[in-house]
């Protein structure tokens, strides 16, 4: 560092935005030098009475150079006061530059360089498997909560295969949903505040075998839902809507199972889909929904590594476009294939929609959460397939 510097330090401690504000409110003129230790690259910002007039780094100059340096999260800075006489290449005001640069940083337009001179890579995979999506729900309606429970980090809340029919809503903290597989415990998704733990099946059928294990990732506060109230509300629904909810729940189970089979490197669908025409093309703009009366339907997504089977649907299941609920499948993000003996009947979506809109806030949130879980789990399934490839 030059000896005539009057102000120097580490960008780790005082970021460029703060340094510029300090020098700015002080009305200083001079050269602000930035340096990353393990990189030969340096940068200069010329300040005239507190405002940046010009900048340069590497091949860049002016505003472009200045913005680029906002990505230097590590490294050193020093300020040398000087009567700078240079052209005002940068016309923008100090705060405008700072706010714009930070916006670009958050938008991912500016490259981030840390102290070692490494550009920041994608976030590392969890356990080398896949990055686990985190689902959060809307604000919790305390009306349905009968009790609160605390779980410590690492504590199991439910265990796959064990019995129980409580449903919780996460008040604080994060919970991981895992599937026990032949190759060990596999994290599927994580849920945070506003999300639900427990399956709709226990409301629908009273089925009380847990289909997955859930573990508190951090200290967690859960609200126990009034399951009697949920059951009562469910009992008042029309048969069609009940069937629709049951089908949604099955679809989530299906997708979760597909993640497990992708992990266990089983099951391939290419062969099948390459010989068949889909009933609904992925990305098509159809707007109808159907219920299966006979045969089988396959929900298949065309992912990077090829076709991925997301769910098998059977008699009584629903498929097609639901304008009021997005499960991240057909028609926008998956195709539908049918078995030879498939028979369907059309479903009046508007009737389902009006019933959906009449649900209590908690039930409504529960269903939307279910849909979000289907979406997230599907992308996990595709991510795993991409990773393990078509063995």
């Amino acid at each position, binding site marked *: 560092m030059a000896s005539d510097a009057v102000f120097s330090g580490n960008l780790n401690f005082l970021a460029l*935005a703060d340094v510029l504000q300090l020098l700015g*409110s002080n*009305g200083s003129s001079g050269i602000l030098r930035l340096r990353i230790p393990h990189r030969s690259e340096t940068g200069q910002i010329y300040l005239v009475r507190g405002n940046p007039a010009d900048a340069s780094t590497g091949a860049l100059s002016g505003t472009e150079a200045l913005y680029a340096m906002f990505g230097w999260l590590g490294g050193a800075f020093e300020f040398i006061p000087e009567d700078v006489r240079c052209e005002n290449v940068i016309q923008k*005001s100090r705060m405008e530059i700072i706010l714009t640069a*930070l*916006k670009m940083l958050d938008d991912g337009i500016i490259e981030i360089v840390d102290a070692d001179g490494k550009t920041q890579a994608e976030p590392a995979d969890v356990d080398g498997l896949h990055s686990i999506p985190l689902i959060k729900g809307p*604000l919790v309606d305390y009306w349905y909560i009968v009790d609160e429970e605390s779980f410590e980090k690492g504590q199991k809340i439910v265990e796959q295969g064990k019995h129980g029919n409580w449903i919780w809503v996460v008040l604080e903290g994060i919970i991981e949903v895992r599937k026990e597989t032949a190759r060990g415990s596999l994290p599927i998704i994580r849920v945070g505040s506003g999300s639900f733990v427990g399956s709709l099946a226990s409301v629908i059928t009273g089925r009380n075998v847990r289909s997955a294990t859930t573990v508190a990732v951090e200290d967690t506060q859960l609200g126990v839902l009034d399951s009697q109230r949920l059951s009562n509300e469910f009992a008042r629904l029309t048969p069609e809507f009940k069937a629709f909810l049951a089908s949604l729940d099955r679809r989530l189970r299906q997708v979760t199972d597909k993640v497990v089979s992708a992990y266990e490197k089983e099951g391939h669908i290419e062969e099948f889909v390459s010989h068949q025409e889909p009933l609904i093309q992925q990305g098509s703009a159809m707007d109808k929904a159907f219920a299966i009366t006979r045969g089988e339907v396959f929900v298949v997504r065309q992912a990077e590594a090829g076709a991925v089977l997301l769910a098998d649907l059977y008699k009584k299941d629903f498929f097609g476009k639901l304008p009021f609920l997005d499960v991240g499948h057909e028609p926008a993000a998956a195709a539908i294939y049918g078995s030879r003996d498939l028979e369907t009947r059309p479903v009046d979506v508007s009737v389902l929609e009006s019933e959906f809109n009449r649900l209590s806030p908690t039930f409504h949130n529960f269903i939307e959460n279910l849909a979000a879980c289907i979406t997230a789990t599907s992308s996990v399934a595709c991510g795993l397939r991409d990773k393990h490839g078509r063995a």
Partner: protein
Amino acid sequence: MAVFNVRNREIECKIVYYGPGRCGKTTNLEHIYRSFKKQVSGQMVSIDTEGDRTLFFDFLPMGVGKVMGCDVRLQLYTVPGQVKYSSTRRLVLKGADGIVFVADSLAVRREKNMLSLKDLHNNLKSYSSSVFKVPLVMQYNKRDLEAQGIPLMSVAQMEKDLNSQLKVPAFEASALTGRGVGLTLKECLKRTLKSLQKELRLSE
């Protein structure tokens, strides 16, 4: 944390307008910028952030007197609500001396208001401050829409939703027409300066 600028004999205070997207934060600032043009130094900076705009300008309020022989210079900011703009939010919220929480009176935005307040609470917590400590003023904006028959929440309900624990001064406003905008800022400034003096243990 206000900055003492010894060279200009000024104290720079930062007042931040916070609230859910499209609640009228920027309209508030635009109104202030227009009506107090003479006291505004420099341009208004406006950055288009997704779903919202981030505004900033410098402002010399009249009639607040001097603090320790220094003039008071205000920096007014809005914050982008979107989660991903964390760097911007950190810059703006860090060292905020006073906060105006702008709540949307539209009945359909009830949940958005509460979420945003919770968000503010969490954000301040991560900069080791708190909604209970920082000088805060509430504004219930868009009251003018009632005349057009658009369903609004009653002030009593908003008080219950947002202010039952905080118990800070709250103002009805219509940022579009300017009603209540000045009052809100004035109260926030008053509280900010009071807390600054307390912090600096200055006698009046």
